[in-house]
């Protein structure tokens, strides 16, 4: 797929991957073997009939192709861009056993972009059921559940705490990987399904869940509030100026558009030597954003080795092409500040890999006496997020694990009647598509619950 060249793109926030041309899409689609027992579908958390949509695409039936995708997935332009396809559908593609798998994600993106450029078709909805569902959080899980429930004829209201819908899609994932206008367009599509969106409503504070059910006339609630609470390292000096959580950094840049400061009012301060701690997609996104904001040097510090890095391979490659340096097997031990309270150095310790831990990855072990100093004026801590605690603290009787996640079964059913949950708030930090899968299963369960109630 064509991309912006690294030396160009590292100075702008425009999308890196440019998408297939029609010719390229048709050529790629023609590689699909149309297996009688397709393996790819097994790897799709939202159960898209992949061979069917590829066949329609190949035959030039784009409209039918996107319709096929949208039977299962209401956010195809988003998924076509940010799904870890190599770990999901494409991992099971038979062609992958002998060479390159079919680029399913890119084909999905092609059809979604094709439809968006022409205007959305709104599918038929079931007749109104008279039931009302409150969805908490307008991220991938909530949007998916909302779309599915609306199509089933329920009245759906989404309560979003931030001032824009999209959740991690707007505050977390940078413009160059997922343009906000695309999120906006797909959210608009969900609105056109009849879903009402209320922005700036923090459930737990504005209304509690029992209030939604008892006083506000909702028959069921879906909690899709994600994992938004940043984790910190717990080392000395962490509260110095210039040290951001990845969430703060990305919220400023993506949601508040600090890259356009002072045209937009939210500032961001980027120094010359930026260090990003962590090895996941959020670390890559932070590092690449810092580079685009004008940092001279951006270094990712990760405590394991390249093999254990949880980020998508494609994104690590993109980052390295753009000139981001990776320092493996090192972990910060403290931060040192200047007289104004701004970070100026970071002390790290060298690690080596021991036997695997509970995550299955080899455990990093500090090498005694191997501390070393790095100069830095901006640090971004991207070591993970935990569930936001507000709903758990304000909903009596809701069972919660010791990690703060909400206890829910396969179908999202929680310990409270009529209350369902899914996505990162249940599983801990995971992917956009797995949250969408959870939203989908919960929508199905909520529908059954509502229809069985008289």
């Amino acid at each position, binding site marked *: 797929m064509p991309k912006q060249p690294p030396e160009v793109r590292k100075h702008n926030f425009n999308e890196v991957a440019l998408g297939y041309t029609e010719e390229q899409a048709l050529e790629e689609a023609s590689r699909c073997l149309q297996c009688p027992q397709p393996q790819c579908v097994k790897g799709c958390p939202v159960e898209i009939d992949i061979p069917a949509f590829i066949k329609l695409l190949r035959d030039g039936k784009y409209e039918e192709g996107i319709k096929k995708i949208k039977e299962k997935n209401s956010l195809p332009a988003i998924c076509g861009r940010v799904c870890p396809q190599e770990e999901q559908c494409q991992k099971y593609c038979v062609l992958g056993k002998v060479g390159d798998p079919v680029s399913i994600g890119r084909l999905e993106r092609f059809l979604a972009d094709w439809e968006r450029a022409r205007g959305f078709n709104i599918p038929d909805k079931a007749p109104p059921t008279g039931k009302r569902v409150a969805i908490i959080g307008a991220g991938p899980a909530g949007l998916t559940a909302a779309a599915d429930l609306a199509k089933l004829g329920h009245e759906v209201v989404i309560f979003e705490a931030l*001032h824009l819908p999209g959740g991690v899609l707007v505050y977390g994932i940078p413009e160059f990987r997922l343009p906000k206008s695309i999120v906006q367009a797909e959210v608009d599509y969900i609105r056109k399904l009849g879903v009402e969106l209320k922005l700036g409503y923090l459930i737990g504070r*504005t209304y509690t869940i029992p209030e939604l059910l008892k006083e506000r006339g909702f028959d069921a609630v879906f909690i899709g509030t994600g994992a*938004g609470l940043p984790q910190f390292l717990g080392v000395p000096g962490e509260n110095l100026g210039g040290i*951001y959580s990845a969430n*703060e950094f990305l*919220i400023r840049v993506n949601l508040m558009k600090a890259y356009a400061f*002072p*045209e937009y*009012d939210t500032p961001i301060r980027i120094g010359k030597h930026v260090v990003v701690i962590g090895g996941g997609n959020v670390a890559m996104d932070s590092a690449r954003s810092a580079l685009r904001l004008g940092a001279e040097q951006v270094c990712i510090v990760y405590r394991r080795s390249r093999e254990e890095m949880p980020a998508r391979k494609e994104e690590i490659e993109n980052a390295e092409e753009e000139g981001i340096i990776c320092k493996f097997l090192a972990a910060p031990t403290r931060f040192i500040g200047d007289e104004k*309270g701004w970070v100026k150095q970071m002390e790290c310790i060298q690690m080596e890999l021991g036997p695997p831990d509970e995550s299955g990855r080899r455990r990093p072990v500090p090498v005694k006496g191997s501390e070393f100093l790095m100069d830095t004026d901006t640090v971004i801590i991207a070591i993970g997020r935990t569930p936001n605690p507000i709903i758990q603290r304000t909903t009596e009787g809701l069972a919660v694990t010791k990690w703060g996640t909400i206890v829910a079964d396969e179908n999202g059913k929680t310990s409270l009647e009529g209350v369902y949950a899914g996505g990162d708030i249940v599983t801990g930090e995971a992917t956009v598509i797995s949250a969408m899968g959870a939203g989908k299963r919960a929508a199905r369960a909520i529908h059954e619950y509502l229809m069985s109630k008289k």
Partner: protein
Amino acid sequence: MYEILRVEELAPKIKLFEVYAPEIAEKARPGQFIIVIINERGERVPLTITGYDPEKGSITFVFNEVGKTTRQLGLLKEGDSIWNITGPLGNPSEIKNFGKVLCVAGGVMIAPMLLQVKALREAGNTVVTVMGARIKELLFFKEELKALSHRLYVATDDGSEGYKGLDFLKDVLASERFDRCVAMGPVPMLQRVCELTKPYKIPTVVTLMPIMVDGMGMCGVCRVSVGGQMKFGCVDGPEFDGHLVDFDQLIKRQRMFLPEERLSALLWELGGCECDGK
């Protein structure tokens, strides 16, 4: 959109807005705050709630016109609208009968203190209030506070009215016993109050409004060191045990974006940005 019902200038550059926000008005309690976003390009600004009227469906808040956003806000009139308001946020204040409470408020935070004093009075406390400002012109709500408090002290930084600075509190604290102290105001003032109450072991609750972005526990910029532990101003606060707060660190963190804030205000003054729709 949130309609502005009433604008009142309390003192030079200090304004009170009453805004139609029925859902927030129904839920708000003393000590909580809101996040205000003026327009689509605006930043998220946390402001303490200074009043609420569930029947009328309105809330009030008070701000000091200092930076770009608050100055822009100050240009809005009755009938204008604010793009988004989220709230109520943060934990409500603990209000009960403590006995005798010393309330110390400075600057723009005099406004929410009025709400606090009222609630403490209703809970049966004896309330001694101290209000302070840089200069006497900035002392607003004096009559209101006087009427609600058992006793009111006034202080100014320049001594233009009442006591000069807060040192007089030393004598007050030496001569009478308080069961609790509630302080709201600029960080250096809070720090000073805590220094003064500490020797007497008076539980001292301070309201902290560190720099925030989302205001709901996501970004962590509002982190404050309290008793050596990392707390978030927005979800763990805004009130904290003042004797455990690392004020020096907080003061440094408050200054993190000063150059950008100055730049933003300056460009706005020069009219360099057409995007504001001013």
